[in-house]
């Protein structure tokens, strides 16, 4: 159970990115976060693992208060929360395998790992994850030699190395074409259904939300304007979230 209470984020330049946002996510949900560009989706997801420090409000995960955790505990929390990014955020010059292994850094010895040493079982784990995502043969090529869809699968493999209980995905398919978008979201759906990993995923297209999410929230100018089942987002709701002039577009 993830509980966000009165979360507010004001950036140093005065931008109010989140205003008093509260919601809950039960274990095993696939929660879609929607909203216009600049509505605060990325800020929200990054506050949850404190890549961004919230200005006010509390975040609880099970019994732990993430927002109150000291740095040493924060790392233990972070390693259970996988994160997937729009721009994949792979280290381009490193091999696919190294990128995947780096997802395990929170578990391995913090000093020997600096010499690029990972125990054999971690190598095995990385290869297993790559195999699941259909990338076993790419383990030793440079990350930037892969296509966009393949890179995002490496990003997922890296997150899986963390044995995550929760996955934060910030527009994981916004840089991909529609066919690849579906294949990536199907992986997330599979992880959600088969392993019971809770997924928080920001998305741009409403039909992707309808197709994959079990729950949805919507942000507008940093405020929560919708919370409920995806199919409840009707035309009136839609206009409230996206503005009066918005039209529904769909993705193949």
């Amino acid at each position, binding site marked *: 159970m993830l509980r966000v209470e009165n979360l507010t984020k004001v950036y140093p330049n005065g931008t109010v990115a989140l205003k008093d946002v509260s919601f809950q996510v039960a274990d095993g949900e696939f929660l879609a976060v929607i909203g216009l560009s600049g509505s605060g989706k990325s800020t929200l997801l990054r506050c949850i693992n404190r890549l961004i420090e919230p200005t006010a409000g509390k975040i609880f995960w099970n019994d732990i208060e993430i927002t109150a955790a000291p740095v040493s505990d924060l790392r233990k929390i972070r390693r259970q929360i996988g994160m997937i990014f729009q721009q994949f955020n*792979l*280290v381009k010059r490193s091999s696919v395998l190294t990128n995947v292994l780096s997802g395990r850094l929170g578990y391995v010895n*913090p000093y020997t790992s*600096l010499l690029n040493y990972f125990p054999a079982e971690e190598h095995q784990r990385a290869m297993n994850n790559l195999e699941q995502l259909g990338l076993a043969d790419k383990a030793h090529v440079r990350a930037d030699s892969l296509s966009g869809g393949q890179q995002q699968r490496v990003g997922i493999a890296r997150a899986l190395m*963390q044995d995550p209980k929760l996955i934060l995905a910030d527009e994981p398919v916004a840089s991909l074409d529609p066919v690849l978008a579906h294949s990536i979201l199907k992986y997330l759906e599979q992880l959600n259904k088969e392993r019971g990993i809770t997924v928080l995923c920001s998305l741009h297209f409403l039909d992707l939300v309808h197709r994959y999410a079990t729950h949805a929230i919507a942000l507008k100018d940093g405020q929560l304007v919708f919370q409920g089942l995806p199919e409840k987002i009707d035309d009136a709701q839609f206009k409230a979230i996206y503005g009066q002039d918005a039209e529904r577009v769909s993705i193949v």
Partner: protein
Amino acid sequence: MSDRAALSTSEVSRNSLLPVLLSLIIPGAGQFYLKQRNRGLAIFAVFLIQFLLTSWAFDNYQVGLLVISAFETNWLWIFLVVFWVWNVNDAHRLAQNKRVTNLFAMVIVALVVYIIAWQVTDVQLVRLVTRFGNALKIGNDLIHPDLFTQDASGNWVPSENFGYIFGTIEQQPPPELFVRLGLVSPTTMLPTYQAGKIVETIALGFLATVFSTIIALPLSFFAAHNVMVRVPFGNTIYYVTRIFFNVVRSVDTLIWGLIVILWVGLGPFAGVIALTIHSVAALGKLYSEEIEHIDPGPVEAITATGATFLQTIRYAVFPQIVPPFVGYTLLRWDINMRSATIVGFVAGGGIGYFVVETLRKSAYNQYAAALWAIAVVIMVVDFVSAKWRERISTGETQVQTGPRRPFYLSLRFWFYLLVGIAVFAYFWSLSEISLKAMLSPAPTLGQVAFGFINLNLDPPVVSDVVNQMLVTIFQALLATTLGSLVAVPFSFLAAHNLTGRSRLSAWLYYATRGLFNFLRSIEALLYVAIFFYWVSFGSFAGMLALAVTTFGLIGKLFSEAIENIDPGPHEAIIATGATRLQAIVFGVLPQIIPPFISYAIYQWDINVRLATIVGFAGGGGIGNLLLNDYFAFSKYRSAGTAVALIVLVVIPMDFASARIRRRLV
């Protein structure tokens, strides 16, 4: 180059009386009044500079002196009047909403600048002809370097000079260690290699690169904005480090050499220190910019996995910065090797010191031998450095099929490590490195430091320094212009994509490429000797020497710019039935003029730095003043003034040239 005041046709004519009057009183004021603020300010600034230059050149060098019976005047004032008139007319046209252009004014100003530069640099073309005999004589020496002689029985053997340069094998008592171990008896003589000056040069360049990399690495993080915003007092540290890098970088290695010999004394060690100081700053700047440009995405992603700070640096930052850092270090190695060939002119050590001695003896065929040795070594270094850098930037080493074995398990690694340590130790001993000398500086160092803080601002000194700095700038300007203009036609011959397929053009390609590489492998300072023998000492000789290196450097850049053009337009124009020349004019020129101008500006920037030291070999300018008038007589306060002015000129030029280049490309 044209702008229009306004495009509205409703306002066909405005009252132009006021702006015209304003511009008549103060150039640029009318334009300023018409809301063309930047144009007005630019016109005023150019007018002021032209005025100051014209009167400066007349007062100091009688440029433009016109004597009509008893009446003396300066005919260069005519250009100032013409510029003034142009400015009034410009204000009028602006007020009338007519089209205005800058071309005419630019030509006027350029004319004045070049006329002044020509006279101030003491260009005497006639000497090139009247003293052509000298050129033939030194040309003859250059193609007959003193490397081999015939011994008594008529065999060709290496000459004594060859030994100085490349080293000799001598019979020496064995090393003490061998004797102690009982390997040899103390009386046996062993053939031992005595390193020559060119080997010492290689040692200087190598050690300076190693040391400056080690020092610049940590410093560069202090000059990276994205790192410093995360630490307390980061902003202050950031600015201090930045300023330090820029100031140190703007002072040439050889000027540092002058200071360093007052610290540790003459010798190879002084050379190493001077090279290291300058390259720490140059590398530090490049490294820090690379750190500032890393992709923050992976840092975020690795942090999100719960990694520690050090793990994040290791896995998200290192892979991004190590390859470019290695690339810059290789580039710096190339540059340091070049500087190592001349650092001996002032600091001692390396082949530069040897060259000075040959010149003192007027032994030009010994000097020629040194030049050839330098050219060969530098061309090899240049080639190796460029090849390795290319490999790093394409990253081909990373493509592999299987898992990698840890590097410390491979035999190759240990082999290279051992060789590296042995080379390092050998070079260390050649360079006479002495930490003792470094930590107990000669008292002269305190005097220099004091002088550089208490600059001598007496009017005569300031006036001398400013005069010679202007000469230096003009020298660089003429050399850049001359070298670039001559390089243009050659650069077309050295561009693969335009020369066609005939055997002749292939031959010409390799010949021009070779010429460029050969000429640019030798530092300008080393060319000065050739030209002072030909046209005698002074800024003209220095200018010609700079022009030769410019030709080599810029010829290479130009030909690469030509090779990088998009072949599409050229092909399309050939397809219309145009001649090859027409295709070049319409399909190629528009693509290469911006990069050409950008490289020429860049080269001017480089040449100003180089021109500050051509005086160390008799090439005039501020280097001459600094070495022969100030340092030679321990006038450290005046020397401080000269160095301060160099910094004040070089740093803004560097910024301006970088900005102009960014806009052009």
